[in-house]
């Protein structure tokens, strides 16, 4: 793929891409703009991290609610 060699995206840009991906909304123009700069490995890592954050947030929320109900 010719993408390699172009300027790398910042962490923020990768995170944003992954967030929108989980959200399920992408504009093709954005996408084409980003794929030029984002490496797949970043997307994979960010996807896993994103999923982990998602799980962590929900678990924390659940713990707070149970703790609140008990207290």
């Amino acid at each position, binding site marked *: *793929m*010719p993408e*390699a060699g172009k300027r790398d995206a910042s962490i923020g840009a990768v995170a944003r891409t992954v967030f929108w991906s989980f959200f399920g909304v992408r504009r093709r123009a954005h996408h084409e703009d980003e794929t030029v700069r984002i490496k*797949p*490995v970043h997307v*994979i890592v960010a996807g896993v991290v994103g999923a982990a954050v998602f799980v962590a947030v929900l678990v924390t929320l659940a713990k707070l609610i149970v703790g609140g109900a008990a207290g």
Partner: protein
Amino acid sequence: MQQEAEANLPRVEADDGHGFSVTVRRNCSISPRNACLAFAAAAVVSFAIGVGFAAAGAWLVLPFAGIEIAALAAAFFFHARHAGDCESIAVRDGRLRIEVRRGGACEVHEFHPAWARLALRRCGGELRLFVGAHGRDVEVGRHLTVPARGALARELGARLGSGWRGLGI
């Protein structure tokens, strides 16, 4: 993109000047680096799941994950090793030169066009094309489909002026 992609074509090129040369490549639409990443994505997840279950006491998931990752690795390795495979066949300055790159190794064979013979052989239900002389045979056209291989054979046959050794074994 277009240019790079076209370099991957399995193709037969003829240049009708003073010589003749054909390069046959296999098509490959992913770079080795990205292939590694694609493999890693699958392997890491499978392995992590196996380790997770092992930690939970169900260690028998892990060996299956291992076997599977090995199979996947073998498939990717097999494919990647041959990503750069190509054959170039050239008739120039009175020599028939065949260069075969296969899995990183490169073999060069030279024949005198007058002596070289073409042979289509049936091997396990498939027709394969060989060029040879003096008891040395080189297989060519391995990346082509059977009809394209037949076409290559006729093209070469016409160039070498040697006709067919036929469909012998």
